[in-house]
């Protein structure tokens, strides 16, 4: 193992080592504060190690991992987001009487899976990462097992995710059968030299799309999303919507660009149909929902639809647009779910839309944060969502993807309708429902997220510049 290898793997090792140490600590003494503090420190060290990784890139640990700007960017993002999720989880877990500490251990393994995905350049690592992530998520989703919803959601996720993993494996197998390779780059080489679309190969790819589609909740494989989002504890929902989606999207982008999928007519057709369907179904189903988590679940489906557009751009700008969109989506979702998490009480999650009636008049600041997050999801100026959508449409037009761009535009209007519905509720005359007060750490997270939403919305130049410098393949 050479020095660079070691350096590049540091963040992974820190995140992998932390749960082991945490388990040891648990064996000695069960202390919630200690474990919580330790997780934060571990995340911080991992985040710092990412910074020291910078001089080593680009670097490949063949045949499993690739460390380039893109990987590093996602490393940083995943770790930072997970840290914020940890802070958001703190008070939420206090409501639970026992076994709070293991939550953080499992969170770490989930993060580990996401990191592996971000660095994967091989079917093996892709699958390993995905499974590490999924299996951790089964547990996390069911973490508040005294609640019926939670268990139901976990079982649903368990069954569907296993099936989709099976699909994924089968698809990989078929591709391996045709190309004899598991590495993305080698598959690309074989594909370039040979006949691109033998039926078996296409079947392989299609079956893989089914698998990935499940993970990303693309239509028609989206059915699990609202139930899981609703049933899972809110911080876990936050994690699924941000880190897990981001990591899967990262590996999908890398794979699709590596094999030049955007040049193949079959792929283009497939992605276009799935993307358009995902946008429309996600947004249309969100309209009648009464539960905030479900609304945001459908909204996340639609957003994945928007992100699929970037797969077909096939140029650097496409990747930048995708990364910027993911960043802004993660920040925005952290804001929206952060508010829900922090307002959740002992017995129930604060996910009923009608409970939020008139929040602005009772708790103006938190309502402003929520409103900004919703406006950002809707893509209204001065929020990062606007810039992200703009950048997406911008690059989409540049690549001539008119059908997708127009469908995106139509969907922005549909989406606006249900975001406005939530905002209208926030600003209606106040009702009697009271929410718990928010801890200082929670306030800090919300402040940070809000500032990020506004900053990227008003002055995205720095971020775009940063992304175009670091997040190329």
């Amino acid at each position, binding site marked *: 193992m050479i020095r660079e290898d070691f350096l590049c793997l540091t963040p992974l090792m820190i995140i992998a080592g932390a749960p082991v140490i945490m388990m040891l600590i648990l064996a000695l003494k069960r202390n919630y504060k200690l474990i919580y503090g330790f997780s934060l420190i571990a995340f911080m060290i991992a985040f710092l190690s990412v910074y020291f990784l910078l001089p080593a890139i680009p670097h490949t640990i063949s045949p499993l991992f690739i460390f380039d700007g893109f990987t590093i960017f996602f490393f940083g993002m995943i770790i930072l987001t997970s840290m914020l999720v940890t802070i958001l989880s703190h008070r939420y877990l206090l409501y639970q009487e026992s076994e709070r500490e293991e939550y953080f251990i499992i969170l770490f393994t989930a993060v580990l899976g996401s990191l592996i995905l971000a660095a994967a350049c091989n079917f093996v690592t892709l699958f390993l990462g995905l499974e590490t992530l999924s299996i951790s998520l089964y547990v996390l989703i069911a973490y508040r097992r005294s609640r019926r919803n939670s268990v139901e959601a976990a079982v649903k996720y368990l069954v569907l995710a296993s099936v989709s993993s099976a699909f994924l494996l089968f698809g990989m197998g078929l591709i391996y059968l045709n190309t004899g390779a598991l590495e993305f780059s080698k598959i690309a080489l074989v594909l370039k030299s040979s006949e691109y679309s033998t039926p078996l190969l296409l079947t392989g790819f299609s079956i893989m799309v089914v698998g990935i589609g499940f993970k990303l909740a693309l239509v028609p494989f989206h059915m699990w999303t609202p139930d899981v989002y609703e049933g899972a504890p809110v911080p876990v929902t936050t994690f699924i919507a941000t880190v897990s989606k981001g990591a899967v999207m990262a590996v999908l982008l890398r794979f699709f660009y590596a094999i030049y999928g955007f040049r193949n007519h079959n792929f283009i057709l497939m992605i276009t149909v799935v993307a358009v369907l995902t946008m429309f179904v996600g947004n249309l189903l969100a309209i009648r929902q009464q539960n905030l988590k479900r609304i945001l679940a459908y909204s996340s489906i639609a957003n994945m639809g928007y992100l699929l557009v970037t797969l077909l751009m096939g140029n650097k700008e496409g990747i930048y647009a995708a990364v910027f969109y993911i960043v802004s989506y993660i920040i925005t979702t952290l804001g929206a779910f952060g508010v829900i998490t922090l307002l959740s009480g002992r017995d129930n999650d604060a996910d009923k839309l009608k409970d939020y009636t008139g929040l*602005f*008049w009772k708790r*103006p600041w938190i309502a402003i944060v929520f409103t900004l997050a919703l*406006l950002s999801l809707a893509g*209204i*100026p*001065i929020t990062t969502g*606007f810039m992200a959508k*703009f*950048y997406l*449409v*911008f690059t989409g*037009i*540049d690549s001539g993807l008119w059908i997708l*761009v*127009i469908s995106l*535009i139509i969907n*922005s*209007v549909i989406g*606006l*309708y249900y975001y*406005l519905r939530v905002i*209208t509720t926030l*600003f209606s005359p106040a009702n009697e429902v009271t929410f718990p007060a928010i801890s200082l750490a929670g306030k800090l997270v919300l402040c940070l997220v809000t500032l990020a939403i506004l900053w990227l919305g008003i*002055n*995205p*130049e720095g971020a*775009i*510049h940063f992304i*175009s410098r670091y997040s190329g393949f």
Partner: protein
Amino acid sequence: MILLYLILILLVGGIFAGIIGKWSQLLSRIISLVALSADLILLIWIWNDHPEASQNTWWIDYKLNWIPTLGIGLHLAIDGLSILLLFLTIILGLVSVLISWKEIHEKTGFFHFNILWILAGIAGVFLSLDLFLFYFFWELMLVPMYFLINIWGHENRIYAAYKFFLYTQASGLLMFLSILALYFIHGRASGTYTFDYDHLLGTSMPAPVAFLLMTGFLAAFLVKLPVVPLHNWLPDAHSEAPTAGSVILAGLLLKTGAYGILRFVLPLFPEASVSFAPFGMILGVIGILYGAKLAFAQTDLKRLVAYTSVSHMGFVILGVYAFNRIAFQGVIMQIIAHAISTGALFILVGQLYERIHTRDIAKMGGLWKQIPLMGAVGMIFAMASLGLPGLGNFIAEFLILTGAFKANIIMTCIASVGLVAGTIYALRIVQKVFLGKEITIWKIPDLSVREKFISAFLVILIVYLGLFPQKVMDTAEPSILKTLDPIENTLPSKSILLKSIP
């Protein structure tokens, strides 16, 4: 820099007014007034200081990098047309704050935040010379307007607010697509990718493409204006909004549509505009007549006034597509005069509503005895609305019809019928509300000192515009010539322009 301050003062003032409103309503109102007055002073300063206007230069041209990687700049500029509209914005802003003094006493801070942010958005629209920035401001004013209708509006406010937002947002996105397409067409042809107005002017493209892109822009502007098949949001939004909201909607938001056509559509797509002109004029005429007809049929006073806007904006679109100096002068006069007269009518409806809590015309009647002053003010602005000589609207409509006559005689003749229709609905207001039989005996106070002050101010303005329109016309002249210039080059025969006529 001073142009940026114009916008920043409003934005920052809005935030302060919003925060302080929690503790003191009065202070929040005062902060709003101070912010608006500061802007007014800046405007007057710009007005006094501006160089002798020539056709091709801006009074002040301010450029700053914003997102240089994508060719987006913070490009603000002011010329005669902009400054007229900015004066209008600030004056109506002051009026809106003043009329809400008694009407709004709940959530005052947030109310003033919204007012100031809408005005900032509008001011930004009138100042932007970067298409991305323009779109940014265009969208920025929607959200606070949505809140204004949604929170402080009347019974059916939520529906109206949705409708307003969705209409404008959907059409705005079409414009956004056009802007992006224009950006790439220009970038590929010239190698410089930029949203800057000065660069994008004169981008050459095939006629069908130009027409398509122009349609995208027009979608946004014609919905805002509004033109008849796209006017559906207007009556709801106007009649459900609080008075200040209606004043800003009718007085300013609609005008951003007209401004957009004058500033962007005509200069960017001269050929396409010329080929669209006949349809534009037809749309204008339909708007004039249909708006007037519907106005006549309303029983809700506020809705009636809202429909008169549709009719008056028909004149604007007719004038714009007549493509000559006189008509353009008329358009600008119409923009200003309509803002004042319709604003005043909405204020009057608001004052009536505060007193008798209904907007149903059938329940009014004979109010003159009770409130003679209000009746007189109502009379004056009803007369303005029907185009009585001596008031601003007359000058506007007369100029538009004169100009349009040169472009298309038949259309103009039909449009003139609109004046008669205007007379009918305007007189109906006076007859049913102030004169006629007293249906209920109301015991209500006449105008208070504050209301007297606002009304007197608006009356003076509209009379001044009617008697001395030359100042406005001189100010707008260079901008008009600049807008007309590319179009004249593309018009098939120059004879119909009659540029020589003063």
